[in-house]
Protein backbone atom coordinates (compact mmCIF):
# COMPACT_ATOMS: atom_id res chain seq x y z
CA UNK A 1 0.00 0.00 0.00
CA UNK A 2 1.43 3.32 -1.05
CA UNK A 3 -0.17 5.69 1.39
CA UNK A 4 1.42 8.61 -0.44
CA UNK A 5 -1.33 8.22 -3.05
CA UNK A 6 -3.87 8.63 -0.28
CA UNK A 7 -2.65 12.15 0.44
CA UNK A 8 -3.27 15.16 -1.81
CA UNK A 9 -0.21 16.86 -3.29
CA UNK A 10 0.55 20.45 -2.36
CA UNK A 11 0.25 21.59 -5.97
CA UNK A 12 -3.03 20.59 -7.63
CA UNK A 13 -3.83 23.13 -10.38
CA UNK A 14 -7.51 22.09 -10.64
CA UNK A 15 -7.78 23.65 -7.18
CA UNK A 16 -6.57 27.08 -8.19
CA UNK A 17 -5.66 28.36 -4.76
CA UNK A 18 -2.82 25.82 -4.59
CA UNK A 19 -0.89 27.48 -7.42
CA UNK A 20 0.65 30.33 -5.44
CA UNK A 21 0.62 28.61 -2.08
CA UNK A 22 2.17 25.19 -2.74
CA UNK A 23 5.88 25.16 -1.81
CA UNK A 24 8.21 24.43 -4.74
CA UNK A 25 10.88 22.76 -2.62
CA UNK A 26 10.59 19.23 -1.36
CA UNK A 27 9.90 19.15 2.37
CA UNK A 28 12.99 18.24 4.39
CA UNK A 29 12.65 14.79 5.83
CA UNK A 30 13.96 14.24 9.33
CA UNK A 31 15.23 10.83 10.45
CA UNK A 32 12.24 8.74 11.51
CA UNK A 33 13.26 8.47 15.16
CA UNK A 34 13.34 12.27 15.53
CA UNK A 35 10.04 12.57 13.71
CA UNK A 36 8.33 10.10 16.01
CA UNK A 37 9.75 11.65 19.14
CA UNK A 38 8.35 15.08 18.33
CA UNK A 39 5.67 15.60 20.93
CA UNK A 40 2.57 17.32 19.67
CA UNK A 41 0.85 20.46 20.82
CA UNK A 42 -0.96 20.22 24.13
CA UNK A 43 -4.42 21.56 23.40
CA UNK A 44 -5.60 21.82 27.03
CA UNK A 45 -6.12 25.59 26.79
CA UNK A 46 -8.88 25.06 24.22
CA UNK A 47 -12.14 24.95 26.19
CA UNK A 48 -14.42 21.94 25.60
CA UNK A 49 -17.85 22.11 27.22
CA UNK A 50 -20.43 19.32 27.09
CA UNK A 51 -22.81 21.46 25.01
CA UNK A 52 -20.12 21.97 22.37
CA UNK A 53 -20.88 18.49 20.99
CA UNK A 54 -24.51 19.30 20.18
CA UNK A 55 -24.64 21.99 17.51
CA UNK A 56 -28.44 21.97 17.56
CA UNK A 57 -28.63 23.26 21.15
CA UNK A 58 -26.31 26.23 21.14
CA UNK A 59 -29.07 28.81 20.68
CA UNK A 60 -32.54 29.58 21.98
CA UNK A 61 -34.34 27.74 19.19
CA UNK A 62 -33.61 24.72 17.03
CA UNK A 63 -31.78 25.21 13.74
CA UNK A 64 -33.51 24.47 10.45
CA UNK A 65 -32.41 21.50 8.42
CA UNK A 66 -31.98 17.77 8.72
CA UNK A 67 -30.81 16.83 12.22
CA UNK A 68 -28.04 14.22 12.09
CA UNK A 69 -25.62 12.43 14.36
CA UNK A 70 -22.00 11.99 13.33
CA UNK A 71 -19.96 9.52 15.33
CA UNK A 72 -16.88 7.43 14.87
CA UNK A 73 -13.71 6.13 16.34
CA UNK A 74 -10.33 7.81 16.21
CA UNK A 75 -7.54 5.27 15.81
CA UNK A 76 -3.88 5.62 15.03
CA UNK A 77 -2.41 3.89 12.01
CA UNK A 78 -1.00 1.18 14.29
CA UNK A 79 -4.58 0.31 15.27
CA UNK A 80 -4.73 1.83 18.76
CA UNK A 81 -7.62 4.05 19.88
CA UNK A 82 -6.68 7.68 20.36
CA UNK A 83 -8.18 8.61 23.73
CA UNK A 84 -9.02 12.03 25.13
CA UNK A 85 -8.04 13.81 21.98
CA UNK A 86 -9.72 17.00 20.82
CA UNK A 87 -12.01 16.85 17.80
CA UNK A 88 -13.10 20.22 16.41
CA UNK A 89 -15.71 20.52 13.66
CA UNK A 90 -17.13 23.39 11.67
CA UNK A 91 -19.56 23.56 8.78
CA UNK A 92 -22.08 25.52 6.72
CA UNK A 93 -25.74 25.54 7.74
CA UNK A 94 -28.48 23.65 5.92
CA UNK A 95 -28.67 26.42 3.31
CA UNK A 96 -24.96 26.15 2.51
CA UNK A 97 -23.91 29.31 4.34
CA UNK A 98 -21.16 29.67 6.92
CA UNK A 99 -21.55 32.05 9.82
CA UNK A 100 -18.05 33.26 8.94
CA UNK A 101 -18.02 36.94 7.89
CA UNK A 102 -15.83 36.02 4.93
CA UNK A 103 -18.66 33.96 3.42
CA UNK A 104 -20.69 36.10 1.01
CA UNK A 105 -22.82 33.35 -0.52
CA UNK A 106 -26.35 34.80 -0.76
CA UNK A 107 -28.05 32.06 1.23
CA UNK A 108 -29.71 32.72 4.59
CA UNK A 109 -27.95 32.52 7.92
CA UNK A 110 -29.78 30.62 10.62
CA UNK A 111 -29.99 32.52 13.91
CA UNK A 112 -30.14 29.19 15.71
CA UNK A 113 -27.04 27.67 14.16
CA UNK A 114 -23.38 28.55 14.56
CA UNK A 115 -21.88 25.45 12.99
CA UNK A 116 -18.90 24.93 15.29
CA UNK A 117 -18.38 22.10 17.76
CA UNK A 118 -15.78 20.50 19.99
CA UNK A 119 -15.59 17.13 21.72
CA UNK A 120 -13.02 14.85 23.29
CA UNK A 121 -12.74 11.20 22.34
CA UNK A 122 -13.64 8.72 25.06
CA UNK A 123 -11.56 5.84 26.42
CA UNK A 124 -12.27 3.74 23.32
CA UNK A 125 -11.49 6.62 20.96
CA UNK A 126 -15.11 7.49 20.08
CA UNK A 127 -16.42 10.98 19.39
CA UNK A 128 -20.06 11.98 18.79
CA UNK A 129 -21.69 15.16 17.49
CA UNK A 130 -25.32 16.12 16.92
CA UNK A 131 -25.66 18.66 14.14
CA UNK A 132 -27.54 19.64 10.98
CA UNK A 133 -26.70 18.24 7.57
CA UNK A 134 -24.80 21.04 5.80
CA UNK A 135 -25.88 22.27 2.39
CA UNK A 136 -23.82 22.41 -0.79
CA UNK A 137 -22.58 25.84 -1.81
CA UNK A 138 -20.91 27.49 -4.82
CA UNK A 139 -17.31 28.68 -4.78
CA UNK A 140 -15.23 30.66 -7.23
CA UNK A 141 -12.80 28.00 -8.39
CA UNK A 142 -14.40 27.59 -11.84
CA UNK A 143 -17.78 28.02 -13.52
CA UNK A 144 -20.38 26.05 -11.59
CA UNK A 145 -17.98 24.92 -8.93
CA UNK A 146 -20.09 23.63 -6.04
CA UNK A 147 -18.66 22.07 -2.92
CA UNK A 148 -20.29 18.79 -1.93
CA UNK A 149 -21.84 18.88 1.53
CA UNK A 150 -19.02 18.46 4.03
CA UNK A 151 -18.04 18.93 7.65
CA UNK A 152 -14.53 20.19 8.49
CA UNK A 153 -12.63 18.23 11.14
CA UNK A 154 -9.51 19.12 13.11
CA UNK A 155 -7.73 16.60 15.34
CA UNK A 156 -4.53 16.68 17.37
CA UNK A 157 -3.57 13.18 18.49
CA UNK A 158 -0.44 12.63 20.55
CA UNK A 159 2.35 13.87 18.30
CA UNK A 160 3.18 16.55 15.79
CA UNK A 161 2.87 13.90 13.10
CA UNK A 162 -0.68 13.01 14.10
CA UNK A 163 -2.13 16.51 13.57
CA UNK A 164 -4.91 16.32 10.99
CA UNK A 165 -7.26 18.83 9.38
CA UNK A 166 -9.64 17.28 6.87
CA UNK A 167 -13.23 17.16 5.64
CA UNK A 168 -15.94 14.53 5.95
CA UNK A 169 -18.34 13.98 3.05
CA UNK A 170 -21.74 12.30 2.81
CA UNK A 171 -22.41 9.07 0.91
CA UNK A 172 -24.07 9.26 -2.50
CA UNK A 173 -23.42 12.96 -3.03
CA UNK A 174 -23.29 13.52 -6.83
CA UNK A 175 -21.02 16.55 -6.32
CA UNK A 176 -18.19 14.45 -4.89
CA UNK A 177 -16.75 13.28 -8.26
CA UNK A 178 -16.80 16.90 -9.49
CA UNK A 179 -14.95 18.35 -6.50
CA UNK A 180 -11.29 19.32 -7.04
CA UNK A 181 -10.48 19.04 -3.34
CA UNK A 182 -11.72 15.48 -3.27
CA UNK A 183 -10.14 14.69 -6.67
CA UNK A 184 -6.77 15.90 -5.40
CA UNK A 185 -6.43 12.60 -3.56
CA UNK A 186 -4.91 10.36 -6.24
CA UNK A 187 -6.14 6.96 -5.06
CA UNK A 188 -9.90 6.27 -5.03
CA UNK A 189 -9.42 4.26 -1.83
CA UNK A 190 -8.07 7.38 -0.18
CA UNK A 191 -11.09 9.39 -1.32
CA UNK A 192 -13.40 6.73 0.09
CA UNK A 193 -11.82 7.25 3.50
CA UNK A 194 -13.37 10.73 3.64
CA UNK A 195 -16.94 9.56 3.03
CA UNK A 196 -19.07 8.69 6.05
CA UNK A 197 -21.55 5.85 5.88
CA UNK A 198 -25.19 5.96 6.82
CA UNK A 199 -25.44 3.92 10.02
CA UNK A 200 -28.73 2.69 11.40
CA UNK A 201 -27.03 1.70 14.65
CA UNK A 202 -26.17 5.36 15.19
CA UNK A 203 -29.54 6.57 13.95
CA UNK A 204 -32.01 7.45 16.71
CA UNK A 205 -35.48 6.30 15.56
CA UNK A 206 -37.98 9.08 14.91
CA UNK A 207 -35.34 11.70 15.68
CA UNK A 208 -32.08 11.82 13.66
CA UNK A 209 -30.21 9.86 11.00
CA UNK A 210 -26.78 8.66 12.04
CA UNK A 211 -23.53 8.70 10.11
CA UNK A 212 -20.44 6.76 11.06
CA UNK A 213 -17.01 8.12 10.20
CA UNK A 214 -13.83 6.64 11.62
CA UNK A 215 -10.63 8.64 11.50
CA UNK A 216 -7.06 7.32 11.40
CA UNK A 217 -4.18 9.49 12.62
CA UNK A 218 -0.53 8.80 11.90
CA UNK A 219 0.90 6.44 14.51
CA UNK A 220 4.47 5.76 15.56
CA UNK A 221 5.18 3.40 12.69
CA UNK A 222 3.94 5.77 10.00
CA UNK A 223 6.58 7.40 7.87
CA UNK A 224 6.48 11.04 6.90
CA UNK A 225 4.61 11.95 3.75
CA UNK A 226 6.88 13.62 1.24
CA UNK A 227 5.90 16.00 -1.52
Amino acid at each position, binding site marked *: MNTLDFEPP*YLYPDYRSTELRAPKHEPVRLPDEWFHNASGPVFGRIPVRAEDADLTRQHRGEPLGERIIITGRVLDSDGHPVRNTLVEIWQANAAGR*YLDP*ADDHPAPLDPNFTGAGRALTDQAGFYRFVTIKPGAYPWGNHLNAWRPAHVHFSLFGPSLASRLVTQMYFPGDPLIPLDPMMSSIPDARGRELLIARLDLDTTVPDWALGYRWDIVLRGRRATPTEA
Partner: protein
Amino acid sequence: MTAPTPSQTVGPFFGFALPFENDANAVENDAYATAGESTDAIRVEGQVLDGIGEPVGDALVEASQGDQFARCRTDGEGTFHFVLRNPVVSDGAPFFNITVFARGLLRHLQTRMYFPDGDGANHVDRVLQLVDESRRHTLIARRDGDILHFDIRLQGEGETVFFAV
Protein backbone atom coordinates in the same frame (compact mmCIF):
# COMPACT_ATOMS: atom_id res chain seq x y z
CA MET B 1 -0.65 -0.44 9.10
CA THR B 2 -4.02 1.20 8.50
CA ALA B 3 -3.90 4.08 6.04
CA PRO B 4 -4.15 7.46 7.75
CA THR B 5 -7.19 9.55 6.84
CA PRO B 6 -6.19 11.95 4.04
CA SER B 7 -5.83 15.64 4.69
CA GLN B 8 -8.03 18.35 3.19
CA THR B 9 -7.64 22.10 3.27
CA VAL B 10 -8.80 24.11 6.28
CA GLY B 11 -10.59 26.30 3.70
CA PRO B 12 -11.32 30.01 4.08
CA PHE B 13 -14.16 29.81 6.61
CA PHE B 14 -12.64 28.60 9.88
CA GLY B 15 -12.44 32.00 11.56
CA PHE B 16 -15.79 31.68 13.34
CA ALA B 17 -14.95 28.27 14.73
CA LEU B 18 -11.31 27.60 15.58
CA PRO B 19 -10.29 30.68 17.61
CA PHE B 20 -10.63 30.46 21.40
CA GLU B 21 -10.08 32.90 24.25
CA ASN B 22 -6.46 34.06 24.50
CA ASP B 23 -5.61 31.63 21.74
CA ALA B 24 -2.51 33.49 20.58
CA ASN B 25 -1.15 34.06 24.06
CA ALA B 26 -0.05 30.99 25.96
CA VAL B 27 1.45 33.09 28.75
CA GLU B 28 -1.37 35.44 29.76
CA ASN B 29 -3.26 32.98 31.93
CA ASP B 30 -0.16 31.22 33.09
CA ALA B 31 -0.10 30.87 36.90
CA TYR B 32 3.59 31.64 36.82
CA ALA B 33 2.92 34.88 34.95
CA THR B 34 0.08 36.05 37.17
CA ALA B 35 2.25 35.53 40.23
CA GLY B 36 4.28 38.42 38.93
CA GLU B 37 7.42 36.44 38.31
CA SER B 38 9.53 36.77 35.22
CA THR B 39 7.73 34.86 32.51
CA ASP B 40 10.33 34.70 29.77
CA ALA B 41 7.42 35.54 27.51
CA ILE B 42 8.40 35.94 23.89
CA ARG B 43 6.23 37.74 21.38
CA VAL B 44 6.67 36.57 17.80
CA GLU B 45 5.27 38.59 14.92
CA GLY B 46 5.32 37.63 11.28
CA GLN B 47 3.63 37.62 7.96
CA VAL B 48 2.50 34.73 5.76
CA LEU B 49 3.24 35.40 2.07
CA ASP B 50 2.42 33.53 -1.12
CA GLY B 51 4.47 32.83 -4.26
CA ILE B 52 4.27 36.39 -5.56
CA GLY B 53 4.80 38.00 -2.18
CA GLU B 54 1.13 38.77 -1.58
CA PRO B 55 -0.08 38.46 2.01
CA VAL B 56 -2.05 35.33 2.88
CA GLY B 57 -4.95 36.79 4.83
CA ASP B 58 -6.72 33.55 5.62
CA ALA B 59 -4.05 31.38 7.21
CA LEU B 60 -4.13 29.68 10.58
CA VAL B 61 -0.77 29.48 12.37
CA GLU B 62 -0.20 27.24 15.36
CA ALA B 63 2.92 27.46 17.50
CA SER B 64 3.93 24.95 20.11
CA GLN B 65 6.82 23.97 22.31
CA GLY B 66 6.71 21.42 25.09
CA ASP B 67 3.34 21.87 26.81
CA GLN B 68 2.76 25.30 25.32
CA PHE B 69 0.33 25.90 22.47
CA ALA B 70 -0.84 29.03 20.68
CA ARG B 71 -3.16 29.46 17.73
CA CYS B 72 -3.56 32.61 15.63
CA ARG B 73 -5.14 33.74 12.41
CA THR B 74 -3.53 36.03 9.90
CA ASP B 75 -5.28 39.34 9.24
CA GLY B 76 -5.81 41.06 5.90
CA GLU B 77 -2.11 41.97 5.79
CA GLY B 78 -1.14 38.35 6.33
CA THR B 79 0.27 39.22 9.75
CA PHE B 80 0.04 37.08 12.85
CA HIS B 81 1.50 37.10 16.32
CA PHE B 82 1.73 34.74 19.24
CA VAL B 83 3.26 34.73 22.71
CA LEU B 84 4.97 31.70 24.21
CA ARG B 85 7.47 31.23 27.00
CA ASN B 86 11.12 30.78 26.18
CA PRO B 87 11.69 27.18 25.13
CA VAL B 88 13.63 24.88 27.38
CA VAL B 89 15.68 22.41 25.40
CA SER B 90 17.95 19.63 26.56
CA ASP B 91 19.56 18.96 23.22
CA GLY B 92 20.28 21.26 20.30
CA ALA B 93 19.10 24.80 19.76
CA PRO B 94 15.83 26.24 21.11
CA PHE B 95 12.94 26.48 18.65
CA PHE B 96 9.16 26.67 18.34
CA ASN B 97 7.18 24.23 16.20
CA ILE B 98 5.12 26.14 13.67
CA THR B 99 2.19 24.65 11.74
CA VAL B 100 0.52 26.52 8.88
CA PHE B 101 -2.98 25.87 7.52
CA ALA B 102 -4.68 27.89 4.76
CA ARG B 103 -7.06 27.84 1.87
CA GLY B 104 -5.00 26.37 -0.97
CA LEU B 105 -2.98 24.12 1.33
CA LEU B 106 -4.41 20.65 0.82
CA ARG B 107 -2.05 19.52 3.58
CA HIS B 108 -0.72 21.67 6.38
CA LEU B 109 2.90 22.77 6.45
CA GLN B 110 5.26 22.10 9.34
CA THR B 111 8.28 24.23 10.09
CA ARG B 112 10.39 25.46 12.99
CA MET B 113 11.24 28.91 14.22
CA TYR B 114 14.76 29.12 15.64
CA PHE B 115 16.13 32.06 17.59
CA PRO B 116 18.74 34.57 16.48
CA ASP B 117 21.87 32.72 17.42
CA GLY B 118 23.32 34.25 20.54
CA ASP B 119 25.34 31.33 21.81
CA GLY B 120 26.10 29.33 18.66
CA ALA B 121 23.59 26.57 19.38
CA ASN B 122 22.10 26.85 15.91
CA HIS B 123 25.45 25.78 14.44
CA VAL B 124 25.30 22.42 16.16
CA ASP B 125 21.55 21.78 15.95
CA ARG B 126 21.04 18.45 14.19
CA VAL B 127 17.88 19.48 12.38
CA LEU B 128 19.33 22.75 11.09
CA GLN B 129 22.37 20.85 9.84
CA LEU B 130 20.06 18.74 7.65
CA VAL B 131 18.84 21.87 5.89
CA ASP B 132 20.72 23.23 2.92
CA GLU B 133 22.91 26.03 4.21
CA SER B 134 21.56 28.52 1.67
CA ARG B 135 18.01 28.08 3.02
CA ARG B 136 18.76 27.77 6.75
CA HIS B 137 18.16 31.47 7.34
CA THR B 138 14.45 31.01 6.54
CA LEU B 139 14.11 29.15 9.84
CA ILE B 140 15.73 31.79 12.02
CA ALA B 141 13.75 34.68 13.46
CA ARG B 142 15.27 38.14 13.63
CA ARG B 143 15.20 40.33 16.70
CA ASP B 144 13.21 43.52 16.37
CA GLY B 145 13.40 45.35 19.68
CA ASP B 146 11.56 43.31 22.28
CA ILE B 147 9.95 40.97 19.79
CA LEU B 148 11.06 38.34 17.32
CA HIS B 149 10.06 38.58 13.70
CA PHE B 150 9.43 35.43 11.67
CA ASP B 151 7.93 35.50 8.19
CA ILE B 152 6.59 32.41 6.48
CA ARG B 153 6.97 32.36 2.69
CA LEU B 154 4.92 29.51 1.26
CA GLN B 155 6.50 29.56 -2.19
CA GLY B 156 9.15 31.19 -4.36
CA GLU B 157 11.94 33.61 -3.42
CA GLY B 158 13.09 32.90 0.11
CA GLU B 159 10.65 30.00 0.46
CA THR B 160 10.54 28.83 4.07
CA VAL B 161 11.93 25.38 4.72
CA PHE B 162 9.15 22.96 5.59
CA PHE B 163 9.51 19.49 7.06
CA ALA B 164 7.80 16.29 5.96
CA VAL B 165 5.18 15.11 8.43
